[in-house]
């Protein structure tokens, strides 16, 4: 590790050396481009080199945006399951699947208790999260609880309520 660090340092020093030569080179290329057409080409080249937005990992994880992103994730999970079931129920006679409520209840009831609780929790947590976080979003749409402190406070309340209610739904409901 130390050796790599030393190599990086020496490379940086190498890059930083000879600045006078660098400036001469830049001036030479600008002097060539004295006509308007060439100046415009330089402008276009600069615009094409503008920095692009950094990816998500550069941002600090904060209560303002993490649950908002998870709102879309949990909504997609719930709606995806809803769509998969609806479409599968429509085509089930073609393939001989038994997706009527009695068969599904019997199949689910035959699972071991741990699997049942785990499956219920896996469905209940996205449901409670999306429901309670949806209330926050609707409140923001009305312009309420929209200060930074309120968003953070309601965020922690929402996380607590949705986790507890998901456990309650999985274990006792």
């Amino acid at each position, binding site marked *: 590790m130390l050796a790599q660090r030393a190599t990086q340092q020496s490379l940086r020093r190498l*890059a930083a050396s000879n600045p006078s030569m660098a400036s001469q080179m830049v001036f030479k290329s600008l002097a060539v481009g004295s006509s308007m057409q060439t100046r415009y080409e330089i402008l276009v*080249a600069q615009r094409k*080199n503008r920095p692009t937005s950094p990816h998500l990992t550069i941002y600090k994880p904060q209560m303002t945006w993490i649950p908002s992103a998870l709102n879309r994730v949990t909504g997609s999970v719930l709606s995806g399951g809803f769509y998969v079931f*609806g479409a599968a129920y429509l085509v089930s006679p073609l393939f001989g699947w038994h997706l009527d409520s009695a068969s599904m209840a019997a199949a689910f009831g035959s699972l071991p208790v741990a699997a049942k609780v785990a499956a219920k929790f896996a469905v209940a947590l996205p449901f409670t999260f999306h429901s309670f976080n949806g209330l926050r979003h609707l409140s923001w749409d009305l312009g309420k609880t929209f200060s930074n402190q309120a968003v953070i406070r309601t965020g922690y309340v929402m996380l607590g309520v949705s986790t507890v209610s998901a456990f309650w739904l999985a274990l006792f409901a």
Partner: protein
Amino acid sequence: MASIVRPAVLRQTCLATASKRTFSTKLSASFPAINKPATSVLSRPAVRNAFVKDALPSAVRVAAFHASGRQAILPPLPQVIDGTANDAAPVPPPSPSHGSYHWTFERLISAGLIPLTIAPFAAGSLNPTTDAILCAAILIHSHIGFESIVIDYIPTKRLPKTRVLFWWGLRLATVVVGVGLYEFETNDVGVTEAIKRIWHA
């Protein structure tokens, strides 16, 4: 440590780090896939040579400055100029049915889901009409949500054909699911009652 003894190990480490590097606004010519115009005035070999000797492998040069991980979800394409370099971003024509009316409709559906979600918990189950209303509201809410996801992650500018495919595929899926739910509502016990029976099984 071993890189003192074996320079090849160092080179491989540097190459691996460079291939993982995330975003760079400099030394772009060494990554033509991300920043294509290698003929750019600013990245002319003459200018770059003044800073760094080309005798160094370009990957090593980049590795010296960039060591963070690469996230390859929709990496930026080479930038292009539409029209002239000084054109402002186009403002789309105002359309309430695609703007404020649509936004309000989304919120009304979402707000309407609150009582419809509380009702089965309060009443134990739902009668067929209310259950059908709940299903329809969830279907519209889901459709709007999926539409937003398609708009956000499959931009027309970048993937025009994929966008059309997903746009109409989503509409087809919503119709199929709607028909499927109608079948379930008319032939079975209803969604809330079915969930209740499975949940208590």
